[in-house]
Each structure stands twice: as C-alpha cells, then as structure tokens.
C-alpha cells in the first residue's frame, strides 16, 4: 500500500512527516529498553524479513494483489518501538533505492505502514492475549488477529488522510468502502503470514519472541510453585 508522490497535497504530507518524525523519536527512546541481549540480534533480521516479504505480492480478488505490511509481525517479534524502527528502515530503503512509495509521501507511508500497523497490531495482539488462554500456543493466533486488524486500520487511516488532503476529490464513503473491502481480504493474507512466522519461531525459541514473554513468565512461576 505504498502511497506514491502526488496523491496527497503538500500540507498533509508535511503533517504526516512531522507525525512520523515524532513517532520515530519516541521509538528510538523506547527501543533502548527493548533491545536487550536476546532481541538486539534479531532486529536486523526482522527488518530484512519484512522487506523480503513485502516483495511477495499475493493475488486477492479480481486482478488485485496485496503484500504483507509487517508492522504487527515486527512489533510482536521484537517489540513495538523496535518494530517501528524496522518498518521505517524498510520504507526508507524502498523509497530511496527502489522508488517504491514516494519521497514526499515517505512520512505518510511511515504513518500508514509503520505507526498504524505497529500500534494497532500490537494493541490488537495484547487485547487478544488478554482474552485468550495464557498459553504459548495462543501467541500466534493472537498475532494473527492483531495483524488482520492492522491492515484494515491502515487502509482506513489512508481514507482519513485522503479526505483531508487528497488532490483529486473522491467521496469519503466511496473511498472508505473500496479501501476497507479490498484490505480486509489483504488482511487475511497478513494474518496468515504473521501466524506462520510467529508460530514457527515460538515452536523453536519462544524466548526470542517479545510478545511471548508474558506467557513464558507465567509458565516459569507455575513451575516454581509445583517444585516447592
């Protein structure tokens, strides 16, 4: 869903760039706490994996394709702050080297595919974790729910931005219906990929998954109680 140059007017692009810059500043501070000895080595891999997977457009209905956005996946694997840094690096490289997503639209793309997918993906994941049983096997399903929600939220946020600064006027409801319906299908793909990746890593090294830590802590406490 890379927004090209020209879709949004200059004031809107400047505003999203300011929001993106502020969020990156917050993420740089927050990442310091997340980047411990276990997570730090993984951050580069997660960014690289998101970049690679974003190249893999999968077909959705009627001659349309979609690809992983990856904000939810990154947030769950390495934490939301580091996750936003991963997505930002991916979007900067795509924009500067590959002309994928505009230069003046870079702030917009960081907002849509970085901030919104990371925040909604992470909050959706945590909310699902609160409702689902506190087991390791529930980490991947919770991740999938967060991932699906993140894509729809990103599409809806684009519609809001477009209603403020779209260069060619399109009725809000028409655009919302079109964007949300196609991205609901793309969200299912996002959920499937996120589920597969999170489930794979949880099955071999759950301690390397940031979002699995609370569940691991619960398990350790139970073990101690039984031992005493």
């Amino acid at each position, binding site marked *: 869903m890379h927004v090209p140059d020209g879709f949004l007017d200059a004031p809107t692009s400047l505003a999203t760039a300011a929001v993106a810059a502020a969020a990156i500043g917050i993420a*740089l501070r927050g990442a310091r706490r997340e980047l411990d000895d276990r997570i730090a080595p993984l951050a580069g891999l997660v960014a690289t994996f998101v970049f690679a997977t974003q190249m893999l457009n999968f077909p959705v209905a009627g001659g349309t394709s979609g690809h992983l956005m990856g904000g939810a996946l990154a947030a769950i694997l390495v934490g939301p702050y580091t996750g936003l840094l991963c997505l930002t690096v991916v979007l900067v490289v795509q924009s500067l080297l*590959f002309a994928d997503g505009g230069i003046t639209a870079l702030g917009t793309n960081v907002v849509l595919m970085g901030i919104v997918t990371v925040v909604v993906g992470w909050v959706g994941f945590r909310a699902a974790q609160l409702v689902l049983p506190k087991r390791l096997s529930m980490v991947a399903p919770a991740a999938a729910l967060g991932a699906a929600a993140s894509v729809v939220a990103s599409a809806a946020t684009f519609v809001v931005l477009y209603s403020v600064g*779209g260069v060619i006027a399109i009725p809000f409801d028409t655009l919302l219906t079109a964007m949300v319906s196609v991205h609901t299908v793309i969200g299912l793909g996002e959920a499937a990929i996120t589920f597969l990746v999170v489930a794979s890593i949880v099955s*071999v090294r759950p301690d390397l998954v940031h979002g699995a830590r609370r569940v691991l802590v619960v398990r350790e406490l139970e073990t101690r109680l039984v031992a005493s």
Partner: protein
Amino acid sequence: MKRISTRTVLVVGLLVALALAGFLSFHASSSPDGLNRVATDLGFAEAETASATQDGPLAGYDLAGVDHGRLSGGLAGVIGCLAVLGLMSVLVLVRQRSPRPARTRGE
C-alpha cells in the same frame, strides 16, 4: 530436545529472507496492489507524480544494466535485503551502545 541456538535462528532466517527476495519474488503477483487498484477504479491514480528516485539504478526492483529479468529482479531483492540489514544493524548498535540506561546515573 536440543535447544536451537540464536545463531542458527539468525542464519536460517536470513537465508529464508534472501531466498524470498532473490528467488520467490519473481513469482509474486504483478497485479496492482489494493491501493493502486482503488486509485485506478475511483479515478485518482492520475494524480501520481514520478518519484525523484524513479531513474535510480534499482527503481522498480530491477537492477539497471542486467537484461535478464529474473536475475535483475533477484539481485535487486538481495541488494535491498543487505541495505535493510545494514541500516537496521547500525541503528541497533547505536541504540545499544550504553549498556546501562542513562537515567540511573542521576539517581
């Protein structure tokens, strides 16, 4: 059960990423993505202006000067992976530099 080392996870993960970007990307759908399709259908695709990096050597995920389509795209993917890995690693190193959080100093 033998515990899989972090190094193994990193190496396997990286190889998977390189394989996805270098090989599988060739088989990715070339249909317009959700936003581009909606932009075309609703008539605001024409507002798009060319990116300043449109003429760069990697623009459009094809390495300039390599005529073989599959090789050109695959190499572009691998170069992109390495660029992302390098940039993110630098960012992590900078963030990690002080092992002790600065705020404990004043307490």
